[in-house]
């Protein structure tokens, strides 16, 4: 922006500043309120959470366990599949890739009743398996993210590796994966958040309170413990947000770029 242009729009700039501040304040106010109300309970927070919301620690452990069991599979499988769409040249590749993208349009609610029946047949209901085994087959969105990233890695590196005697597996392991660490971490982060936030699938597939994830447990503290007060619920909610915020601030730049932009440029 040139100086002249700047001067020209200074007045508009001030108005813009005020409007943006207003929007930000409105959007942040529920968060700020929640944190402050639960903060009033600061001293007794841990006691409350342990005492009156008894399964909080257990539900946290369950969620982390599911994330731990599923994330390696999600990252690995999505990367392998993305390699197949980025570096392996085969007939029909673009058409199949388009099909993979199209499957993102099929939402979970459409699948939940038949999946319930299938998992029931397999004896998986009431275990964590319905929540982590499918992750080991990758996910269309993550495949898409990684393919975009792989496509940005210069092909000359493949050629060099090929001359050194590498096949596809060698190129994947020695060239693509080491250069894709940021993207792989992003997929892991996205998947962790997905597990952390997921509500409907745990609601459908988990049968016992002891197995609930944090999101599911949180939704129940309200109804099962009639005596739970607003402050305690807000405190518990705040605690579920903390890891998300920490991840966000650690990976902020990549978050905004990969989360928002990737879809678009190719």
């Amino acid at each position: 922006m040139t100086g002249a242009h700047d001067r020209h729009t200074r007045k508009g700039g001030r108005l813009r500043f005020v409007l943006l501040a207003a929007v930000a304040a409105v959007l942040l106010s529920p968060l700020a309120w929640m944190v402050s109300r639960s903060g009033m309970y600061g001293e007794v927070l841990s006691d409350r959470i342990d005492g009156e919301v008894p399964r909080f620690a257990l539900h946290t452990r369950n969620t982390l366990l599911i994330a731990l069991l599923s994330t390696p599979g999600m990252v690995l499988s999505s990367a392998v599949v993305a390699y197949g769409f980025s570096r392996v040249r085969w007939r029909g590749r673009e058409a199949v890739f388009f099909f993979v993208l199209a499957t993102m349009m099929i939402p979970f609610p459409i699948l939940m009743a038949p999946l319930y029946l299938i998992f029931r047949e397999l004896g998986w209901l009431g275990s964590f398996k319905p929540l982590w085994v499918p992750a080991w087959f990758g996910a269309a969105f993550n495949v898409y993210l990684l393919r975009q990233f792989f496509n940005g890695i210069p092909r000359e590196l493949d050629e060099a590796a090929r001359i050194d005697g590498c096949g596809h597996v060698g190129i994947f392991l020695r060239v693509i994966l080491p250069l894709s660490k940021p993207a792989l971490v992003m997929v892991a982060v996205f998947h962790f958040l997905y597990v952390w936030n997921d509500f409907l699938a745990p609601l459908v597939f988990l049968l016992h309170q002891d197995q609930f994830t944090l999101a599911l447990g949180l939704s129940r503290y309200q109804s099962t413990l009639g005596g739970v007060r607003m402050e305690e619920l807000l405190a518990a909610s705040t605690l579920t947000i903390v890891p998300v915020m920490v991840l966000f601030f650690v990976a902020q730049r990549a978050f905004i770029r990969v989360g928002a932009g990737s879809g678009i440029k190719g």
Partner: protein
Amino acid sequence: MRRRSSDRARDGAAVGLLWISPWLVGFGLFMLLPILVSLWYSLTDYELLSPAEFVGLANYTDLAGDAVFWKTIRNTAIYASLWIPLQTVIALVVAAWLAPPGRLVGVFRTAIFLPSLVPIVAASLVWLWMFRDRQSPLNAAVALIPGAGAPPWLTDETWAMASMVLVGLWAVGQPVVIYMTAMQDVPETLYEAAQLDGMGKLGCFWHITLPMISPLILFNVIIGIITAWQVFAQPYIITEGEPNRATYFYTMYLYDVAFQFRRMGYASAMAWVQLLIILSLTAAVLAGSRGLVHERSL
């Protein structure tokens, strides 16, 4: 360029399919199979305790006469047609303010994006209490308006729907960031040329920015349609579909039919109807946007 592409060996389709086989197997087991299974069950009466019994199209004809089914379709359609346009307009305006550099813009970006990261259950609980508590920022702000008491956020049919839309709009930061990134990618030369022609700021936004990012708007509208037809956690936690089923949405009914009433055949028919609704709405939006959306390759 030519040399490079002819140098590279072409792999057989078998090699390609082998690499993508994890996804193919997963798709087959956890998507295709359930869809086919539910097509079969949608033609049966199956209440889990007794074996499925073939009933032909009875589930579908029952749906046509099911008042609750139509109510949830109507509610979901109302929600979608309020939330998607509002979200799109707000996101575009805010993104246009956020895109250029300026004082504290980085802080504002973070502040606006942050609420969209709040897990859905936590967000629903926060809003439940935003509506209920007299001293919440929402009710405190309303109290500042002279003569206005706190509206019956969750107890009046119209207000309850409005409240659901409000909760949905809290996540506006997601599309804001998407639009903002795209706006920053619009070549500066286009604006310079337009300014030489005497075009003002609004003119630039209307004639350059919007057409240039139109593929993304289309993309977001389609995502919005899919999201709106999946809405579940917010009404489940905040209103439980009340009052008088005014916030009882399609996916809630599907959940209740499948897992409360245990009518798997009927639920499967509902799932198929939902799939057809989403597909036909998407096709309609794609067809309707032809000519409006600036062509750009994926």
